[in-house]
C-alpha cells in the first residue's frame, strides 16, 4: 500500500507519532510543521489525505482550514480538533472533511486513512493524466526515479 498523506502539525510529538504510525502502515507520509513549509508541495501535488492538526490553533490561523478546503478540492481533510477551543464552528465542516475530536487517537486516524484510501477507485497507469498525478508519481517523475 502506498498513498500520499500529508500531516500538518506544529506539535512535535503528535507529528512524529503520526509520521511513524502511518509509515509503518505502508503510507507515504510527509509531515510538515507549518502550512508555509508545506505550501509548495500542496500547491503542486494535492495529497489524497491531509491530516490537519488543529491543536493549539489560534483564531487568526483558523482561516487556513478554509483556504485548504478551497485549494484542495480533491483531498480528504482529517481535522484533529479540540471541539471546545476550535475557532471554526462544526456547522462549517465540509462533506469531504472528517473531524476527529480529542483525545488524540493515532490508531483511529490510521484506520480512517485506510478507509479513505481503500474507498478510492484504483488508478490505472493509462488513466494518469499529466498535471493530475498523485504526489508520489509527480515526485518520482521530478526526481527521475522511475
Amino acid at each position, binding site marked *: 500500500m502506498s498513498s500520499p498523506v500529508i500531516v500538518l502539525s506544529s506539535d512535535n*510529538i*503528535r507529528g*512524529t*507519532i503520526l509520521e*511513524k*504510525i502511518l509509515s*509503518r502502515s505502508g503510507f507515504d507520509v*510527509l509531515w510538515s510543521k507549518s502550512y508555509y*513549509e508545506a505550501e*509548495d*508541495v500542496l500547491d*503542486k501535488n494535492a495529497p489524497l489525505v491531509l491530516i490537519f492538526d488543529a491543536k493549539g490553533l489560534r483564531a487568526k490561523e483558523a482561516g487556513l482550514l478554509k483556504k485548504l478546503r478551497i485549494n484542495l478540492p480533491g483531498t480528504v481533510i482529517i481535522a484533529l480538533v479540540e471541539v471546545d477551543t476550535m475557532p471554526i464552528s462544526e456547522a462549517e465542516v465540509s462533506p469531504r472533511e472528517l473531524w476527529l475530536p*480529542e*483525545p*488524540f*487517537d*493515532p*490508531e*483511529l486516524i490510521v484506520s480512517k486513512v485506510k478507509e479513505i484510501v481503500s474507498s478510492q477507485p484504483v488508478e490505472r497507469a493509462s488513466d494518469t493524466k499529466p498535471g493530475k498525478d498523485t504526489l508520489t508519481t509527480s*515526485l*518520482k517523475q*521530478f*526526481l527521475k*526515479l522511475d
Partner: protein
Amino acid sequence: MIEEHEKRLNLLKGRLENLKEETATEGSKDLQTDMAVEASQKPIVATEKELGQEADRPSGPVGIDIGTTHIAVAQNQRNHINLVKQLNAFFTIPQSNFTRKILKQNEVTFFEQDGLFYIIGYSAEGFANMFAANTRRPMERGLLSANEPYAVKVINAIIHTLIQKPKNFGETICFGVPGAYIDGTGSVVYHESVIKRVLSSLGYTPMAINEGLAVVMSELADEAFTGIGISMGGGMCNVCLSYISVPVVTFSIQKAGDYIDAMAGISVGESATKMKLMKERGLDLLKEPKGRITLALHIFYEELIFNLVECLHNVLSSTDRIPKISGPVPVVLSGGTAIPRGVKEKFESALKNVRLPVEISSVRIAEDPLHATAKGALIKAMSEGE
C-alpha cells in the same frame, strides 16, 4: 517579485532534494530498523575495562551510558551485545617523576593537571583504598558535577579509555541523558551539550536519548516500543512514557539509590557507604527486616518507590500529550536500584494506590538492569543513525 519566486523555487527544490534522499535511503532505513530490533533480542556480555587494555575502535554505531558511577559502551556483535564499562571516578595524588614512572610501568590511566596526577577509572578505586580515602566523581545526581572543576576533562579521559576514534568518521553514537527534573535543580542542557562536544571531538556524530526511553528501546521491542521505562540509578530516577518509540512524557526525580543510602545511614548513625554495602549484599524487600539497618533500608526503599509512583501519577495526570493507547502498557524497571528482590512487588503495590491515565499490563525488571540504558542507546543509534 522575481527574487521571491526564486526563493520559493529554491525552497521547493531543497525540499524535493531531501525527499529524494529519503526515498533513496528508505530501503536501508528499513534494514537499519530491522537490525536494531534484532539487536534488542540479543543478550549482553559485559566486561570491566582492564588495566592496559586498549580502547576499542568501533566499526558501527555505538551506545554509551554516562552514569554517575559507571560509563558503559555497547556495540552490536553477531550473537550478542558487547558492553565494556569503566568506573566514572578519579583520585588525585601529587605529581612527581618517580610516581609518573611507577604509574606508567603499571599501565595506570592518568593525566596531569595543576601539579596533580588524576588517576581515572577502576585504577582510582585501588588508589583510594590504598590511601583509605574515597574516590571523587565527575558527575553528581546524573549530571556533570558543578563542584569538580575538571569534571569534563575526567569524563573525556575516561571515555578515551573505552573508545578511540571510529573506523568511519562521523559514526553515530547515542548517549543517555536525564529528563527534566520535577524536584530539583541543575541544567540538563549544559550536561547534554558538553557531552555532545566531547563525543564530536572524537569523530562521532552524537545523538542524545532520554534514559527512560533507552530502557524502553532495550526491553520493549515486542511491545512496539510502547510502555513506561524507568531507570533507577544512583543519583536519580528517569521516567519515560513511550508510544511506538516516541517519548511522549519524560521526567526525572533526583532521588534514587544514593538517597536511600544517605537517609537510611543518617537514621541509624551509619555511613552511606556501609548502607550501600548492606544493600548490595542481597537486600530482600520481600522478607521482614531483621535489625535496624535493614529496617531503615526497607523504609527508604518504600519511600522512594512511593514517591516515584506519586510523581508518575501527577505528571501523567496533568498532561494532555498522551495519545489514546488501545491496550494496557508494561512498566520496565532498570538500573542498580531496581536489582534487590522485591522492588517489582513494591512498585506494583504502590501502583494500586493511584489511578493512572494509562492502564498498566505488568511491571517487570529489565533483563540486565545495570546495562539496559547502554543497550537501548545502541538500539537507537542503530535504528536512527545516519
